[in-house]
């Protein structure tokens, strides 16, 4: 199908983009387009104006800033998954990004677009929460920073307002941490039925710190705080990790759909959390 007609703007700076969003009431922001263009084609959305961020160079790239990596919102998935800095300091993000859709989509799709789209089955919100990422939002009143845990408000809804843009993702360095993203699907190229993002820091044979967050176990990514606390000080053995992972579904409200009911997802969360933590610990 062909999208409904729209007016197209391709600004070259963030300020120009913000001015366009302020000027037009029915405008949609186009990042990599790998969710938006299919939605336009199916006419699930028919905005009057498209503001394409593809010509804004300042929104691309990955750099270090002290204890954090700073990733431009328009950095494509493929660049994130193959970047040496991300591999060294935020391996969890690289591993999760490599599971998004398929290679063609990862060449076009962007980290910022995926986070603002906030699909509960998307693979990037959970690692952003697990790693304690901060999201920098530009609006008419200047820039503000929102913690990932506060960024995702509901299904497809974030702290980014209609006239705002996500410009940067700041990821605290987790250098030397083990990481794994365990994604469960029935077939390739599918959205996560459940996914688990895990990062652990070992001290000798035991787990000194753990970060675990879940994909598609609610309308927003869920931090598995009970699992994290239960893992601290434990040996990285199958028995100890299994005992901690048994609490993975606590406080979650997963959906029931054609891929499985809520109870099935609660069970999956415990199994996948065990696998993810063990793999992250290299056990």
């Amino acid at each position: 199908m062909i999208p409904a007609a729209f007016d197209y703007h391709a600004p070259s700076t963030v300020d120009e983009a913000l001015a366009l969003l302020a000027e037009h009431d029915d405008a949609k922001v186009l990042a990599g387009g790998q969710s938006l263009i299919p939605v336009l084609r199916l006419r699930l959305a028919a905005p009057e104006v498209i503001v394409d961020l593809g010509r804004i160079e300042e929104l691309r790239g990955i750099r270090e800033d002290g204890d954090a990596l700073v990733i431009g919102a328009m950095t494509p998935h493929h660049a994130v998954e193959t970047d040496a800095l991300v591999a060294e300091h935020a391996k969890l993000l690289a591993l999760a990004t490599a599971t998004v859709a398929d290679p063609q989509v990862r060449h076009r799709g962007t980290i910022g677009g995926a986070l603002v789209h906030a699909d509960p089955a998307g693979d990037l919100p959970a690692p952003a929460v697990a790693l304690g990422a901060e999201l920098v939002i530009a609006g008419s009143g200047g820039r503000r920073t929102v913690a990932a845990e506060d960024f995702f408000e509901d299904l497809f809804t974030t702290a980014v307002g209609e006239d705002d843009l996500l410009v940067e993702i700041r990821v605290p360095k987790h250098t030397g941490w083990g990481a794994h993203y365990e994604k469960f699907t029935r077939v390739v190229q599918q959205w996560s039925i459940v996914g688990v993002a895990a990062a652990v820091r070992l001290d000798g044979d035991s787990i000194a710190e753990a970060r675990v967050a879940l994909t598609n176990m609610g309308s927003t990514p869920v931090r598995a705080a009970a699992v994290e606390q239960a893992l601290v000080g434990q040996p990285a053995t199958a028995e100890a990790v299994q005992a901690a992972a048994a609490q993975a579904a606590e406080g979650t409200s997963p959906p029931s759909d054609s891929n499985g009911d809520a109870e099935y997802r609660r069970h999956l969360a415990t199994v996948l959390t065990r696998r993810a933590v063990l793999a992250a610990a290299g056990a």
Partner: protein
Amino acid sequence: MTRITVNVDGTSYTDDVEPRTLLVHYLREQLGKTGTVVGCDTSNCGACTVHLDGRSVKSCSVLAVQADGHEVTTIEGLATNGELHPVQRAFHENHGLQCGFCTPGMIMQSIDLLAENPDPTDDEVRLGLEGNMCRCTGYQNIVKSVRAAAGGAK
């Protein structure tokens, strides 16, 4: 209408397009490059895969205006002086197709895959082609073709 200039298969084109025009429709209907096909219309099947600035993309999920100032390579731009591209030749020699509808996309994605991983295993080929579907389910010979092309490139 928006004026765009796109280099397609080595030739520069300047055209007026509606912003809503998908790249695949621009290629097929405005430039007559029907070698790139529309399979599913939902971004799943990969039949419309082309290269944009040297990387594979699904041309049903890119607007023609987004390609303004960029380079596109389609299946029609691979052969040089009547000689098939090595990956095209490998698909031909290993019968990497049944009905042939997915073949343009399979070949374009295989070239991208081999550029990143010149000697893939069977599993790596299957994973690298996860965004391309063959509804004849002829995957066995497709994998064989890509492995043969990798061997030929050594």
